């Protein structure tokens, strides 16, 4: 059957248009494929882990809908948890568990002053299908000349990643941490994600 009529005549019609904007790629929150695959694999392997653990770091924020860039996966746990996770992921291990203390790249901003930030933890490092995984046991933070904080403790939230139920550091904990460090840009990104996930702007 031939086409009914092949129109090439421009035609203006008066219809109300709904204004909208196509988001830029950088505005869309998507976990990259390598990190996603590694996350799923880790979640499956650690499903029966007896020690408390949770996804942490930037990847965990992306999973929770926060618009940040993630380049590796981090897990927060206890010292015993780090040992247990290492046993389960031993074939991916690139650095065995050991106590690590280091200054991080970004300073804290407290009372308008910049302070160095150190973290120490019982840390193991892995390469899971090409993605870096850092496991931190009993992570502590020190700001400037103050005392070391207590090891970070948490009650995880849960997110289903393609059907795999994963414990994850609650955004509330991250937000409080960032606020304490004066990283308001990061706290603000969390706030943005929380607003998008709640009824009537949170």
């Amino acid at each position: 059957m031939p086409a009914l009529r092949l129109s090439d005549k421009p035609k203006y019609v008066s219809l109300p248009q709904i204004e909208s904007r196509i988001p830029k790629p950088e505005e869309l929150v998507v976990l990259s494929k390598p990190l996603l695959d590694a996350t799923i694999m880790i979640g499956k392997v650690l499903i029966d882990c007896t020690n408390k653990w949770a996804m942490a770091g930037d990847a965990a924020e992306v999973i929770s809908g926060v618009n940040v860039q993630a380049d590796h996966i981090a897990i927060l746990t206890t010292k015993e948890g780090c040992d247990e996770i290492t046993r389960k992921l031993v074939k991916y291990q690139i650095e065995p568990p050991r106590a690590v203390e280091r200054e991080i790249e970004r300073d804290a901003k407290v009372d308008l002053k910049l302070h160095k930030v150190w973290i120490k933890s019982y840390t193991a490092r892995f390469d899971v299908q090409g993605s870096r995984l850092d496991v931190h046991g009993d992570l502590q933070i020190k700001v400037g000349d103050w005392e070391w904080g207590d090891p970070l403790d948490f009650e995880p939230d849960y997110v289903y990643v393609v059907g795999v139920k994963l414990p994850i550091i609650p955004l509330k904990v991250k937000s409080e941490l960032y606020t304490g460090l004066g990283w308001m840009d990061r706290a603000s990104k969390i706030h943005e994600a929380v607003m998008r996930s709640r009824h009537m702007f949170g």
Partner: protein
Amino acid sequence: MPTTITEPAADVVILGVGYMSGVVAAELTLPGLTYKVVAITKGPYWDYVNDFSTTKYDEWGVGLGRKYDSPLPLQSATIRNTPQQFALPVRRYTMPIQYHALGHGVGGAAQHYGGTMGRQGPWGYTQKSSTVTRYGQAFLDGVNPHSDLEDWPLTYAQYEPYYVEWEKAHGLCGNYNGSATNQSSDTGYPWMSQNYPLPPSPITPVGQLFQTATQSLGYHPFPHVSALASQPYVNQYGVPVNPCVYDGYCGGPCDYACETGAKANAAYRTIPAAMKSSNFTLVLNSFIFRLDTDPSSGLVTAARYYDPQGNVHIQPGKVFFNGMWGYNMIRIMLLSGVGAPYVWNSVPASVSGAVGRGLTNGYLPYKGTNVSGTLPNNGGNSYPAGNGSGGSVDIYDLMDDNFDHTGLNFIGGTEVGAGGYPGGGPGNITFAGSVSSASMGGTFKATQKDKYLPTKTTLSSTPFAHDLPTTDNYIDLDPHYTDIYGDPLTRLTYDWTPNTYNGATYLVNKVKDIFTKMGASNVTVGSTVAPGAAHNDWWGHHLRGGCRIGTDPNTSVWNKWNQCWSPVSKPVFNIFGAGEITNTSGDNVPSGTHIAGPQSYRAAEGIKQYLALGTPGILP
């Protein structure tokens, strides 16, 4: 002055950006692939925070004005019940004529649905051959005069892996489908190789009663399958999903957009993944009005669309995916001369063509044999609200061929369920036009007093069997009415088939037993409603068939890869399609979308294979 603009050529041009198109876009722009993909929609991109958060609580504007939906002044459809009638256009989105609107923009109609899902069981894919084998051709002919029922090209087992992908992409919630063994040997139920990726929403007390009652009757209850995310989720494309906040403005008069993106649709599940790719281009507010075809090969060479300024754009491509909603999928093919149009004849053996053929309706007659009862001690509190499709429990035992139909006058049956959230959707203003003493004045006001704190639950069911395709129900172009651009509207020639009514008359007593077992009082079966007691005067947004997938290019538009193989003499094989309208018939579950979903994955796979062919043609 408006002008004509030729766009850079793409590998794949996607028509419409709804559920099915989202899958194709995401799959063809996966990391590592280099296809240039362009997707065109007539509406906007909806941002659920900015567009819905403060404006969706507008029952009049959403439920009646359909302010998020496809504007009827742009295009409508005409409807008649028989080929002898003059079809009249739908001019408003309100009952009793019409309340199911087309979607508009990215996400399509799934921006405003209740989130109901449910797989089709194995029988649904072979219902013609299974019925003839078990009960004989004469039985089918008696049940469905002028039957045009067809089997699917693939079996349930062959579609099952695609179901899994589709459910993962959209984060469906549930817990299996009632199969006692969950093995492929259980041919009566949609067994699953993987459970749904999210658990169901909490089951209501009425749902729990239904579960206990049906179990004691030997049935196999399972939580209603829902596309409203019950938990935070990340899909296989890495897109994070917010969970449902149970705000209650979800269901109701089909329906309310979601302000957290928990209601699954392409805009918040698949399209974001595609938009991350530099190979993907999204074109908004652009009305596709024609497909250009090559005169010698018949293949589609470009899609033509109007932009908001009235300019004509020509978008060339190698392959086209027709993901437009329902009858628009058919209309664009008829307008463009793509595929063999269906030509009706009063003698079934004399009909011809495939495009527009086999129309059925997922929505069923508004009059049918009904059963009702009251759970006196099961009240509720609707104020905490709920969502549109969680909380209830279903059984598949009274559908498909899960009971013996010997001596009955229908095939198939229905999914039966109970226990949805009492506050799942607003209901103050629902169906304008249904004016009666119960919907206005003092009687109406008296019913409002304790409306949100009911002290009892009313159970009611009209368990229609599914609608079957006949040679007399079809879609073509209306010779009288046009859209705003001057092109003919879609004309629906359609009425409900006897199978629907006859199923209700039989099944109602089965449901009566369930209600009684649940402890309901005053369980009453209404008077028998004969076939044809009500006539279709709306299009519904769950039209099925009309652009069918099938095993025969004479009667179906799409082959097993959802690739066009019509007309037989010169198939237009560079266009693929998927959607409810490609389902071979009405079905027994409320979601034709869920059944169409696997086809979108098949189509995406087919398009990749097609683009890899040395000599383009029909895929093996």
